[in-house]
């Protein structure tokens, strides 16, 4: 065979062709189906003979009712088979390491540097018990303390806790602090309302409600900004606080944010800044100057810790000095020589999780900031915002796409688009477009439920993707939009190149059919078989 210029068929008119992607499809059984009686994947350490002689039959010390009758019916595999199974499953995902993951808006799917993973897995952290004498954990305490100082500087707040286990846990902790604050002033009963906006993260409302507050939601004005007049109508002597995300999930920064804070303060409430969407404003604007009393970040978003399929994560919370006494215990302190954990905080809201938080996530975040510095963080935000506006331009070139609200204005770090025009024209919905895009190796997220923006799609490029990658992403969506016009069947029947095909959702809502575990499934399937 003659050698050829392979690359020439990778471009058309100077632009790269779309990938002929196919996701890994192993048709892998559920692990229970791989079981063969007697197989072992690991052997456990044996108890020494002398110990056996000494203690006798330990299980006999248990009353019969407490002794398990039969071993648990776990699958029995050998080690290579376990590994093979899970490696196959791992291939059937699209993570930041694999795809142009700009489609998961509000998740900030940026690059998680591998060196930070390596550092986080060091035995010097992995094999450390949280209750070890403080002398022996000065290293990790130092990392935590230093990172707290970094967050203070980034936010303009006075003290932080790294304890909450993710953004929502952080929001809840802040709600707890707001409650404790008003209780300390004898106003707990009076102040039972928390205000939020419809475009803030749903946890702002959900956490407030869980804590027993009444939740007042503001809808946006015609331009998509939180409605100041609505806020004025919402505040009263019952207002405990305002929990607001800014920029909101639409990517729009609220220029009147300071006034929002002022109005709530005047009514006697506190203001909490949900900074899940901080990636576009690092070094640009801070919670402190805007007057906020509390804030919370997401280390697995803005600060590059990997998402892990949904955790582990950290949602640190920051407060003004006046509220510091309510922070969860312990706090990390430094006396110039030693780091210590201080539990002597009588007004603290207590513990919100065991120990001190997820140290490896904090470590990664610390390392990430240290690799960038102030200028680097600024660059992160500026490029994230540039990437977003670049993608915005490309998206708006696709007929049928719009970016509702703030027409003609720039966005910060993400945009919530609408496929409404295309849907009207072709009958193809946003979810279907997303699934067809998966045939080219990308995915996207529509929006929180329920949809306020019709046929939504929320894209957040972050700073991690190259111009070529952004071009690729836009080209894929443009192509799918074109297909929706010319041959919608392929779009509606998508995905074709994913790991699996269209799922039949009927079992999910029917108690007689749903199966959350394999055992439930087998039990219910046997019922159906009987009925046939």
């Amino acid at each position, binding site marked *: 065979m003659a050698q050829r210029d392979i690359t020439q068929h990778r471009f058309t008119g100077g632009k790269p062709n779309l990938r002929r992607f196919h996701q890994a499809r192993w048709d892998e059984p559920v692990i229970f189906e791989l079981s063969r009686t007697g197989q072992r994947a690991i052997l456990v350490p044996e108890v020494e003979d002398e110990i056996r002689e000494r203690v006798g039959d330990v299980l006999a010390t248990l009353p019969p009712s407490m002794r398990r009758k039969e071993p648990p019916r776990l699958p029995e595999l050998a080690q290579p088979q376990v590994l093979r199974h899970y490696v196959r499953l791992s291939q059937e995902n699209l993570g930041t390491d694999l795809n142009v993951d700009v489609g998961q808006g*509000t998740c900030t799917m940026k690059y998680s540097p591998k060196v930070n993973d390596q550092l986080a897995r060091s035995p010097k952290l992995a094999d450390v018990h949280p209750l070890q004498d403080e002398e022996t954990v000065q290293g990790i305490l130092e990392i935590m303390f230093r990172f707290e100082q970094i967050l203070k500087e980034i936010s303009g707040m006075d003290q932080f806790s790294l304890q909450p286990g993710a953004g929502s846990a952080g929001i809840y902790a802040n709600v707890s602090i707001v409650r404790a604050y008003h209780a300390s002033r004898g106003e707990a009963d009076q102040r039972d309302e928390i205000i939020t906006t419809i475009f803030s993260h749903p946890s702002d409302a959900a956490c407030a409600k869980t804590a027993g507050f009444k939740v007042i939601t503001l809808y*946006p004005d015609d331009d998509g900004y939180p409605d100041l007049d609505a806020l004025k109508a919402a505040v009263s002597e019952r207002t405990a606080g305002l929990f607001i995300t800014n920029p909101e999930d639409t990517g729009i920064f609220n220029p009147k944010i300071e006034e929002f804070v002022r109005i709530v303060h005047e009514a006697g409430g506190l203001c909490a800044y949900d900074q899940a969407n901080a990636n576009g404003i690092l070094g640009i604007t801070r919670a402190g100057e805007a007057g906020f009393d509390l804030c919370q970040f997401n280390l697995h978003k803005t600060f590059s810790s990997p998402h892990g399929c949904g955790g582990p994560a950290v949602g640190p919370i920051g407060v003004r000095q006046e509220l510091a006494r309510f922070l969860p215990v312990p706090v990390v302190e430094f006396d110039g020589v030693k780091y210590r954990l201080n539990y002597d905080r009588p007004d603290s809201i207590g513990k919100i999780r065991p120990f001190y938080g997820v140290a490896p996530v904090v470590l990664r975040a610390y390392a990430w900031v240290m690799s960038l510095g102030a200028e680097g963080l600024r660059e992160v935000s500026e490029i994230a915002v540039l990437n977003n506006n670049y993608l915005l331009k490309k998206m708006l070139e696709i007929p049928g796409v719009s970016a509702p609200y703030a027409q003609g204005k720039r966005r910060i770090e993400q945009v919530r688009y609408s496929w409404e025009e295309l849907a009207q024209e072709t009958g193809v919905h946003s979810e279907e477009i997303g699934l067809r895009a998966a045939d080219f190796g990308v995915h996207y*997220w529509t929006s929180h*439920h329920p949809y306020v923006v*019709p046929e939504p799609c929320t894209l957040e490029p972050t700073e991690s993707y190259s111009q070529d990658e952004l071009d690729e992403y836009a080209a894929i969506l443009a192509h799918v939009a074109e297909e929706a016009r010319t041959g919608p069947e392929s779009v509606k029947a998508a995905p074709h190149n994913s790991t699996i095909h269209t799922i039949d959702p009927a079992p999910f809502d029917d108690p007689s059919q749903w199966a959350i575990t394999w055992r439930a499934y087998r039990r219910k399937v046997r019922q159906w078989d009987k009925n046939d």
Partner: protein
Amino acid sequence: MGDHVAGLPEESTPVGQKRLGLIVNPVAGIGGRVGLKGSDGTEIQQKARELGAVPEALNRAIQALERVRPVDDLQIITYPGEMGEDAARAGGFVPTIIGSIRRGETTAEDTRNAAQDMQRLGVDLVLFAGGDGTARDIADEYVRYSAIGEGSDVADGYIRRIRLVLGIPAGVKIHSAVFGTNPRSAGDLALLALQGRASGVREAEVMDIDEEAFRQGIVAARLYGYLNIPFQRRLVQGLKAASGPGDSAAMEAIAWDVVDGMDDETLYIIGPGTTTRAIASRLGVPKTLLGVDVVQQGRLVAADTNESQLLALLEERLAKVVVTPIGGQGYIFGRGNQQISPRVIRKVGKEHVIVVSTAAKIQALGGRPLLVDTGDREVDRMLSGYIRVVTGHREQAVYRVSC
């Protein structure tokens, strides 16, 4: 209350063949394009045709039917000619024709006959192209109940008697909530319903607009009744947050909230609507589906009241009004609850008006404000601005009201 109806009503669960009843109102919306309001009456129809009007309903129906093609083994049952046969054939179907009409001279009576025939034959869904008037005509056949004494107890039987209906919008300005947002989405929803894949069934308001008054620039709308329509919640998508309760759960939550806030000294004037009905249900009190009831201390004081009855009751008593948006346009006063007149509202006071609505209904407004049209400009202005809407248990929205 609180019946979670998943999928289609029992009698119409498809076994084998799916049957779609199609009713096209050939004159629906005929007046619109040529600037005439409404299309009731052969006189208006004549006038419209003279002005060169082309009936829109046919095209709208075809657009919707195109979306329904993927249904396996589908039988379309319809009336002859312009009342459905033409649309079905143009859509590529071979329909089963029933009934008879006088071509070019169809009336509301024909619509009612068609609806009745389909009920007798038993179809899985009645898909109709028309406007408020058509919806009202169909409602005549499908809603049989008496106003007084109906409440949540009858809900079961009520649901069983109601057929599953869905409207393809082809009217001027539609106030009823039984329609898809446009012909294509109506078709999409019909497809899902026929395939048994719709999320569930929802009650939607049928509004009766007085077209004569409408032509004179007055909108006089009354709540005519409710029809069951299929609905579809959006399929699960890359979720990071729970979706919250379904419709009936949301209404229950709202009911709890309102009932928790009730005190013994206050009279509660409860307007029509499915959400307000949930409140009556929570109290264990029957609710006039289309009318205004009054309760106090958890007991019914007066049912299906008119303005003067309300004013009499209000003498010397503290009262609150509980209303919910009626119809597809988001009116909280003036469309279906005119018994709560400007005088009543003034007496009660704006601060004692409680608006209830599920968040889904608020969102369906797509950013448009809630509307008031009491007939009194001053009262309208008083109600305008921002209002708190109870959207759940200890959940409210602050939303704009316009007149």
